[in-house]
């Protein structure tokens, strides 16, 4: 469905609505994923879908209805349903006017035709290249190659109208040997930038280097976190920058905006237009996204808002609304950490004794206010001894405040895209002192 076709549906719903305020989100997606393991493709899938979601606001009362039928009758019916639902909600005195939108130019590189039209054999070709590298080494690999294209149009009764089309291509692999494993990934918008051989080789190297792992004692360690590891850790901190969390008091810095919590070298921004991860230039209310600096040289500078929290807190609307309704409030989803001045290799060579960590697993919040999380290392954990990689170690469990970790963080001068759980992140490798491990596991 083209953006013009999506706009036509949105305009029909707006015309059909008798609500005080109406917002229509029309979205389409075509996603495919080729998953592989142990010499087979265990999940090879594709799905196309569309959605029309109508938010109707009547006298401060809000109802939301959605459908995936696109006929005129279905559009009229879902609009009427949203209005009918609104009648059952008490009026919300904080309900603001919907934003009127603005210019929303798509960042370069967000949509790539080759990715949008990739067929299953293109994905299979990359998967085969990855698997071949593992097989040559005498190992086996499990992973996926995915491509997707999506389009979204948002229009509202205040005059906002914004459309975006984007693509994504991703591949990853876990290469597995008798007593070690290694992980590699690549995120892009262009499938032609994904080199299966290179991804496979990286994972094979980690697997080979991790053979015959030794156990190390838990306790405080100097760690070097590669981008997938620091990226996943950060996703458990980002909700603290939501105006909702800040307002409710559950953010680690509620009431302390402007204070310094982190090391001087820590600067974190939300930037939908980063060249490595170009994304949607407006939020789910059609408000143009700003590119706020959340943390500047260790000090917390901004929280992200949507129209509701901008109105409630008397702050600017930063353009970070999620689709209505949602329980999470506005969120920073396109996060970029500024690189430092030292290379990742130098961070390792300057480490007397530490651990190099490829990836984390199953991170969960233990203590919301202090941002303490627990989780495991996974798929490539190595001992650093006198500045050199000295072999693999068995995996460890950590319990660590992310705030405390970033207070002792030095970022390298590289930049890698990683992601997951709805986030897009561009992050460097990082060195952290005193990272707290509490137990080990058997592998």
């Amino acid at each position, binding site marked *: 469905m083209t953006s013009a076709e999506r706009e036509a549906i949105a305009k029909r719903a707006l015309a059909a609505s008798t609500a005080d305020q109406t917002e229509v989100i029309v979205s389409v997606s075509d996603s495919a994923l080729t998953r592989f393991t142990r010499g087979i493709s265990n999940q*090879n899938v*594709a799905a196309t879908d569309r959605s029309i979601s109508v938010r109707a606001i009547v006298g401060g009362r809000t109802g939301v209805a959605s459908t995936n*039928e696109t006929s005129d009758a279905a559009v009229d019916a879902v609009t009427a349903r949203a209005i009918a639902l609104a009648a059952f909600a*008490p009026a919300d005195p904080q309900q603001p006017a919907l934003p009127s939108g603005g210019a929303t130019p798509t960042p370069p590189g967000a949509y790539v035709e080759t990715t949008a039209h990739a067929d*299953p054999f293109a994905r299979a070709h990359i998967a*085969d290249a990855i698997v071949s590298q593992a097989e040559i080494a005498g190992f086996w690999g499990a992973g996926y190659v995915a491509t997707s294209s999506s389009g979204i149009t948002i229009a509202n009764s205040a005059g906002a109208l914004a459309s975006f089309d984007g693509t994504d291509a991703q591949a990853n692999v876990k290469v597995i040997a008798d007593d070690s494993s290694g992980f590699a990934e690549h995120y892009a918008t262009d499938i032609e930038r994904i080199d299966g051989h290179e991804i496979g080789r990286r994972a094979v190297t980690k697997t080979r280097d991790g053979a015959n792992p030794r156990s190390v004692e838990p306790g405080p360690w100097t760690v070097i976190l590669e981008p997938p590891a620091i990226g996943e850790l950060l996703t458990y901190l980002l909700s603290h920058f939501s105006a909702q969390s800040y307002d409710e008091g559950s953010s680690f810095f509620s009431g302390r905006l402007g204070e310094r919590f982190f090391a001087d070298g820590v600067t974190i921004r939300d930037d939908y237009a980063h060249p490595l991860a170009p994304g949607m230039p407006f939020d789910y209310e059609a408000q143009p996204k700003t590119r706020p600096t959340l943390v500047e040289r260790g000090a917390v500078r901004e929280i992200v808002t949507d129209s509701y929290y901008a109105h409630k807190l008397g702050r600017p609307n930063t353009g970070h609304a999620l689709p209505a309704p949602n329980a999470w409030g506005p969120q920073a989803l396109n996060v970029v950490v500024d690189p430092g001045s030292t290379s990742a290799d130098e961070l390792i060579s300057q480490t007397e004794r530490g651990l190099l960590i490829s990836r984390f697993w199953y991170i969960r919040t233990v203590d919301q206010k202090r941002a303490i999380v627990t989780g495991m290392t996974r798929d490539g954990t190595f001992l650093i001894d006198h500045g050199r990689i000295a072999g693999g170690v068995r995996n460890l469990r950590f319990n660590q405040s992310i705030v405390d970790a970033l207070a002792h963080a030095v970022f390298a001068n590289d930049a890698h895209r990683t992601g997951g759980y709805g986030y897009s992140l561009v992050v460097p490798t990082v060195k952290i002192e005193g990272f707290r491990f509490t137990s080990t596991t058997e592998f």
Partner: protein
Amino acid sequence: MEFEELADRTLDTAAARGAQYADVRFERVRNERIEVRNGIVSTLSDAASTGYGIRALVDGAWGFAASADLTPTGVDAAAARAVAIARASASIARRPFGAPPERAYTDRFATPVTRDPASVPLGERVALLLEAEKLAHAAPQIAVARAWIDLWLTDKFFFSSIGSKIEQRIRQSGSGLQAMAVGDGDVQTRTFPGDVGLYQSGGWEIVEAARLRENAARIGEEAAALLTAPQCPSGTFDVILGGSQVSLQIHESCGHPAELDRVLGWEANFSGTSFLELDQLDRLEYGSPLVTIVIDNTMPLGMATCGYDDEGTQSGRSDIVRDGVLRGYEMSNDTARSIGRESNACVRAQSWEYVPMIRMCNLSLLPGGTPFEHLFDDVRDGVYMESNRSWSIDDRRLNFQFGCEIGWEIKNGKRGRLLKNPTYAGMTPTFWRSCDAIADELSWFAWGTPNCGKGEPMQTGRTTQAAAPARFRNVQVGVGYGD
């Protein structure tokens, strides 16, 4: 049967394109959600979706394609895409793996419903939540209270090229409430019932059974009291877990590692593998002899209860752990065949646009013989914990650490003062071997999980883990807060 004409066309197209077997699953899905937050109806939504997913088998390899296009040309295109994807799978396969199911069924199934949610006026539903949420503001420290209702209506129509025609009308309902208290540098949360609310298969009677109004004030008071409660100590203690926490414990430490696709390496890059390897079957002492865990996809109130799974296999009951010994897995047709067994109907897709995959479905730790209050009797120094707050386990499901919302000290057989931030940790088989008492059937309950994540693309599964409170000896407690 509804969609039969389109299904015939789909299966004919897949066969004409070269599929040796195909099935198609049409679904009409509706989810109504209401959420009240601090006196405001923050969510009042009604989402409807209709579409279909096609599985095609070519040369021992599978392809799957899904679409919402219900026109004849739409199903033709989707069927052709499924076959093309299967051919791509075959092109990189080092060995054939898939095979058609052996049995076909023509049948209907419908979830028993006592009270159709559609008969409950929307205003009544909203009023229930507004009242419960207001009652949860039982102390000035409550910064946020929430209450919610979820209703799912799923109509499935499964057709296969070996002749299956299965219609299922599945109804699932849930509700819950939560209070968050904010103090000086601390946030404490209480949730009811359990840790996500009460989710079961059925109608409005499930929402009524939660008794939100009757428990809201207590939950708010407990959240506020936790702000000033002493910290749970660190060390080795006997632990008694409430029923919903035992439910999560079996979900994470038994349900997931017993998924046979995970054992075979199908989830290796994401959800992980399993310590329940094939050479451990019928040998591994998973837990103490008190521990028997079964899959029962026919049990009343189970979120995964249905007549047939999404491969068209009839639901039944089978052992995972019997008297402490590993006896089986959650299986699909292909994975079961690879170990010389038959599927136990544990295959589900989130909805029509997702490929069916192995899920733990309804997992059940059978009740023991100890009345709940007697679990405490010979605990000299221990902690009783309820309602999960944090859960993490390694990617082979061995090293785990869980935290609960609330705990109580146990001294000399008596439950004592409130403790905040209780956590416990261990290694799965060691932990289950330390289980020396499970409460009786009066405390046994079908706890539903509405949001179990697995697979790539990630799918959300709705599962049940039935369990009663249980006692474990010499457990590491207080991890995460100690040194």
